[in-house]
């Protein structure tokens, strides 16, 4: 089966770990207790699963908050069933205005920093990188473990912030000062905001540890023959996301500390002179002023725009892999796919100003940011056309994973195209901060990334647990999710065109918005159904762990390296010598004995 690569010399161990291609065939020195094996584990697979489970729980929290938001928008100031009494006991279950601002702030924060980033990079980054490049583990296994456990203080801080005096932070996930820096400005800007900033710092440190690890592992620990252009696109996506984190996260961490200094030591980075907020004037309390609120916006978006791509680039990689495997066809234009992901990431660093077209930033600069932003359409278009090219002439297997991947392509087209309006400065004057923006980023992040995560779970579940997920339930899950998510997010485009602002607790008192309640009610009902429909996923996910059909190493007949390992892989991952001979997408190969050629086998000449 496998070809014989020369055994790696054990003398050279540059990173204190086994060099690339080392194969562990013995396990006797790895007998570990329960705690070291499943809790404080240094095994990348266990850490990946820890991220997966924690991320899914956080997804449920974030989803429930979305439901609370949707209730208020559909039936403003009425008693919210179930959740209402928990969230707002003092009003008998009716949303309070400051509670509403807290809800959407925390919904955004949880979904971005505690769900999507950890699920994409934490879960699949950890699980897939060593397996797909043929390494026994991460380059720094202990750092990897620390990365997961540094996430927990972050979770703790964000949970504590709910209970802080004045409630959780309520200045939006963007935390624009002075609303976020001056305590008098909002109830949530008391201690809640400090906890929020601390939490972000911990999450940032956690992501940083992960990112360092991913880059090192991918650069240094590839199996023999695994060149950069033989890496699966998932790895390309994760590598690029890790690089984005490495370059952008320090800025966010610095900015968070500046905001923390503003709040705790009254440093005045972001506090302008002469404001009077809620009867308080910072200067008269002896605090520094003379800062500028726009400074935060620049720093924040310098991180957060690349972060938006951290939220989607790995998903693009997973989708490319899933499409190729289940379409039984090589990916169309492998190198353009890799280059376009790099292009999206590179452009991501010079477009942050498009979040600030209306902010009071010099309007001339807006023109530069507009042009740069529109250029993102190029790599995005290349990706979509290449996915379509991949499907052309394919032999599509309609598995659950494939359905989710197909829906990603379909939804990414919507999310991508609506971005053109936002990039165009004059059009953005009208649509800035309206629901069309909400529709846009939910189409990218929910209909895109979350659907890709579902697809990836269906695809790699057999590798993780040695059992396949139930296909019937998977398809039921897909159909409902797909229908309801479009029910939730599509009409938001039209709401945005009607001018509806985001973050408005009760829009219907405005003449402009008075007629929008029925649409919002429809959206909310779809949202409740969407959350409810995930029951099928939960049943399938946990049920299949116990009752799922047992599968072998390679249930999908896939060509990439992770399918060479046992399912689930043991400690050290591979029980065979690995040598890579070609790229990961050799499907439908003519003259080969089967319709795919694993990376470890030579292509027929």
């Amino acid at each position, binding site marked *: 089966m496998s070809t014989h690569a020369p055994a790696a010399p054990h003398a050279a161990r540059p990173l204190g770990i086994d060099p690339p291609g080392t194969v562990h065939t013995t396990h006797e020195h790895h007998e570990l207790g329960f705690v070291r094996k499943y809790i404080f584990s240094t095994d990348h697979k266990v850490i990946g699963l820890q991220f997966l489970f924690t991320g899914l729980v956080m997804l449920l929290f974030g989803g429930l908050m979305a439901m609370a938001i949707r209730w208020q928008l*559909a*039936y*403003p*100031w*009425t*008693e919210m069933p179930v959740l209402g009494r928990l969230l*707002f006991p*003092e*009003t*008998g*279950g*009716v949303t*309070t*205005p*400051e*509670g509403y601002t807290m809800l959407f702030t925390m919904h955004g924060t949880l979904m971005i920093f505690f769900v999507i980033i950890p699920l994409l990079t934490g879960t699949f980054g950890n699980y897939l990188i060593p397996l797909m490049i043929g390494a026994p583990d991460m380059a720094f296994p202990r750092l990897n473990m620390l990365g997961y456990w540094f996430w927990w203080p972050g979770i703790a801080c964000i949970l504590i912030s709910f209970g802080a005096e*004045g409630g959780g932070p309520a200045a939006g996930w963007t935390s624009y000062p002075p609303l976020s820096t001056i305590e*008098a400005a*909002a*109830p949530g800007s*008391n201690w809640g905001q400090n906890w929020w900033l601390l939490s972000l710092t911990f999450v940032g440190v956690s992501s940083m540890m992960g990112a360092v690890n991913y880059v090192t592992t991918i650069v240094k620990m590839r199996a023999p023959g695994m060149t950069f252009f033989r890496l699966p696109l998932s790895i390309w996506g994760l590598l690029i996301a890790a690089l984005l984190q490495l370059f952008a996260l320090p800025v966010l961490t610095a900015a968070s500390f500046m905001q923390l200094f503003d709040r705790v030591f009254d440093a005045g980075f972001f506090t302008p*002179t*002469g*404001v*009077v907020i*809620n*009867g*308080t*004037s910072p*200067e*008269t*309390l*002896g605090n520094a002023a003379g800062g500028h609120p726009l400074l935060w916006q620049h720093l924040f978006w310098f991180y957060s725009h690349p972060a938006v791509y951290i939220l989607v680039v790995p998903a693009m990689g997973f989708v490319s892999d899933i499409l190729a495997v289940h379409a039984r066809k090589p990916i169309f234009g492998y190198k353009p796919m890799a280059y376009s992901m790099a292009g999206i990431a590179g452009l991501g660093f010079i477009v942050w100003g498009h979040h600030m077209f209306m902010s009071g930033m010099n309007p001339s600069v807006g023109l530069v940011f507009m042009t740069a932003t529109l250029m993102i359409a190029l790599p995005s278009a290349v990706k979509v056309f290449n996915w379509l090219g991949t499907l052309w002439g394919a032999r599509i297997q309609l598995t659950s994973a494939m359905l989710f991947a197909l829906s990603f392509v379909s939804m990414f087209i919507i999310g991508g195209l609506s971005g053109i309006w936002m990039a165009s400065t004059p059009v953005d004057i009208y649509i800035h901060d309206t629901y069309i923006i909400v529709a846009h980023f939910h189409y990218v992040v929910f209909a895109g990334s979350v659907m890709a995560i579902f697809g990836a779970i269906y695809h790699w579940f057999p590798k993780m647990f040695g059992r396949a997920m*139930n296909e*019937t*339930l998977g398809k*039921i899950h897909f159909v409902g999710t797909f229908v309801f998510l479009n029910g939730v997010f599509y009409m938001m485009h039209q709401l945005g065109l009607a001018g509806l602002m985001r973050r408005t607790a*009760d829009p*219907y*008192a*405005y003449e402009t918005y*008075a*007629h929008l309640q029925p649409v919002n009610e429809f959206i909310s*009902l779809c949202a*409740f*159904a969407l959350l*409810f*429909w995930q*029951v*099928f996923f939960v*049943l*399938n996910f946990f*049920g299949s762990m116990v*009752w799922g059909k047992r599968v072998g190493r390679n249930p999908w007949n896939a060509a990439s390296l992770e399918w060479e390992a046992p399912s689930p892989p043991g400690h050290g991952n591979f029980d065979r010598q690995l040598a890579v001979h070609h790229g990961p997408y050799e499907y439908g190969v003519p003259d080969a004995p089967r319709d795919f050629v694993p990376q470890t086998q030579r292509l027929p000449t």
Partner: protein
Amino acid sequence: MIERCHRSAALLAAAALSSLACRFEPKVPELRYSLNRPAVDKNPDLAGDLGAQAQLEGALELMFGTPAGPRYLAAAEWLEGGFDPNYWGEDHVKADEAGWSALVASNRAAYRQQLAAIRAGEFDALDRPRFADDLWARWQALRADIPAGGPDAEYLTTADGQKVTWREEALFRFENYYPTLANSASFYSNQCYHCHGAEGGGNGSTSSFLEPRPRDYRKGVFKFTALKGKARPRHEDLFRVLTEGIYTTAMPSFRRFTDAQLHGLVDYVRLLAIRGETEGLLVSFYAPEEGLNFDNVRENYDLVVERWREASEFFITYAGEVPEPTSERIAHGRALFTTAGEKGGANCVSCHGPDGRGGGVSAWEPGKEGKEYAKDEWGNQIQPRDLTRGVFRFGRRPIDLFRRIYAGINGTPMPEHFGMTISENGAQRTLNESDLWDLVFFVRTLSTHSAVASHDGGHEREAK
């Protein structure tokens, strides 16, 4: 087997979902007015007696209803005399021709779509207006009765022989809508409740984060009125606060709503204030030997209602034009302002300070942590206004300042100045209207000449 399990689970889930969907029935939770806890705790006889508290709560509910159905106790003799407190607001607005036509115009604007639909006969296209449950109920009742002859059949004939069709009646109802207390209570619970609380105690969920604190109506004391003698506010005074807001506080302008809704809101606020004041009297005078009985409840209620009824007698009027602000007048105003009380001046300087920035010696009193600002009726620290900022919460017109200085500010150390004794040129006399104008003109020069920060920030003084 497992397949079947999955299938039945799917069916169950779908059934649960659909039953859930059918039961979506948003509702406003039923709330009751609760007692003024701090006040109750101050009366030791009442604080320990749960039975008496329940009795008091019941008495108040009998008199004022619940947030879902608020009402006044209408005494029989009042009704005989043609006075029904439950129709207080409506009578007031109707009495004023201009006010009434403004109301109709504002209703027309608010219900433009509905009116167009009624005119076009598209009765199904009518949307339920928010905060107008009563209007909607009356419309539906009318709708149900429209005869087979259609909306243009005769509804009634007026005394002077004019025929009114059903359609005209419907239009009339929308244009002349004036909310009931129950309508206004639901409006209040949407727009005011978060700060002012269900009983108007200024203790809503958001209130503890606001500076200055939201008004507690239950004392019946409202800072900004155009009345002398610490009178209860008139309908117009409260209406003005609703439409203008109180600048530099969290109280916004509510002009976005129709005049009718705001008038209704004023009526409801007045109900809450009367309820709170009555409660306050009952609580503070409660004695176990006497208990609660019809007489003392009624006596206190009458007392409070009478205070509110007589409010408009205290309106400060000024006949004639605003005088010319000559330099002599301004100089005289400055002299009155800056001269301390013991030297026979108007003593403004003692609180507002020699530069008018609000840092006078009497602005502070000893507190727990060194000096604190003097407290107002509600126990909150307050700052004398920094007059150089040109921000005046009751309005910046000369007449507004005139009334402010004339009557002072209720519930605060700012006293009534009209008739205050001063000594000038060795002779004792009282402050008259002309003196007040001089003060107004001087105060106005403060904001003209100060270097007000570009965005109106100004510099408030430090408390310590």
